[in-house]
């Protein structure tokens, strides 16, 4: 095993012969990663390749929903202007929140200490939960509002709930995944990097929803 491989293995295991010596010498568990601190290189790992393959298939899932939305919108005799029933400030805030998740999870990946990684992951969880809360508030406003926009009211409502609901499920899965990671005794750096890829994809997937559902002007 090369020195790089040994250091990566030590980083993954959260310790190694060197770290054990550090522990016994210092009397406490080491907080920095051995070999390459702050580096969570995932290129070439099975986990990273598997996540990219999963994201490619998930991208097809989102693409199919966007195709359906595009076809239905173009072929519909009339389509309401989104600004008439979807306020922009909350949607913009949701967009900023998701981009914040990308930032914090990226900071978690490059963190040098386990505690800092956990901190950034916790912030990501909070931001993800805030996004989900915003979605819930928006759904409640639409259901209980004067217009009473339910799922089966019309094509506009169905496509809106299908797209945003599908995306919200992805955010929920990401939040649960991060919570499981943070709850572990050790936070494996490569796992964090792989999960970060998922969160960046969720951020990217929201962008066309924000553009085509909330911003695209009606004809």
């Amino acid at each position: 095993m090369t020195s790089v491989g040994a250091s990566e293995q030590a980083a993954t295991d959260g310790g190694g012969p060197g770290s054990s010596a550090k522990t016994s010498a210092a009397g406490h568990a080491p907080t920095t990663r051995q070999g390459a601190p702050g580096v969570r290189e995932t290129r070439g790992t099975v986990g990273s390749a598997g996540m990219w393959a999963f994201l490619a298939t998930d991208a097809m899932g989102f693409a199919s929903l966007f195709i359906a939305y595009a076809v239905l919108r173009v072929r519909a005799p009339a389509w309401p202007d989104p600004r008439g029933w979807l306020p922009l400030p909350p949607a913009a805030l949701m967009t900023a929140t998701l981009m914040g998740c990308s930032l914090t999870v990226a900071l978690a990946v490059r963190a040098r200490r386990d505690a800092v990684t956990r901190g950034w992951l916790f912030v990501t969880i909070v931001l993800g939960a805030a996004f989900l809360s915003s979605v819930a508030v928006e759904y409640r406003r639409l259901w209980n509002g004067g217009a009473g926009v339910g799922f089966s009211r019309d094509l506009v409502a169905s496509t809106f709930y299908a797209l945003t609901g599908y995306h919200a499920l992805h955010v929920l899965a990401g939040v649960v995944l991060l919570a499981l990671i943070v709850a572990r005794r050790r936070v494996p750096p490569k796992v964090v990097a792989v999960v970060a890829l998922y969160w960046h994809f969720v951020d990217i997937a929201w962008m066309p929803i924000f553009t085509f559902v909330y911003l695209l002007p009606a004809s």
Partner: protein
Amino acid sequence: MNDREKLEQTAGAGAGSLLATFLFLLGLTGAELWVATTPAERAARITALAGLLMLKAGVVLMLFMHGRSRLRVSWLVFAGLAVGVGYAVVLMMEAAFRARLS
């Protein structure tokens, strides 16, 4: 260059760069809001929004996901989206053409 330096070189952007990228994305989102609310021609607004969308997605893919170092798998994800987007564009154009005929 030793192994640690090589690893650190491929680790990606520093915290400052990540924050700058985030602020740039916020700016692009602001630009999208401005384009959507400006009283310009509809086709121009749609084109601008599509361009801003692709720019934002590209920034996240290349800078946050380190797509530059994984071009092959990046294109795998892009292919999934590009096929869908291309198909949607063709269908939209076809539907618009048929709407004009009728």
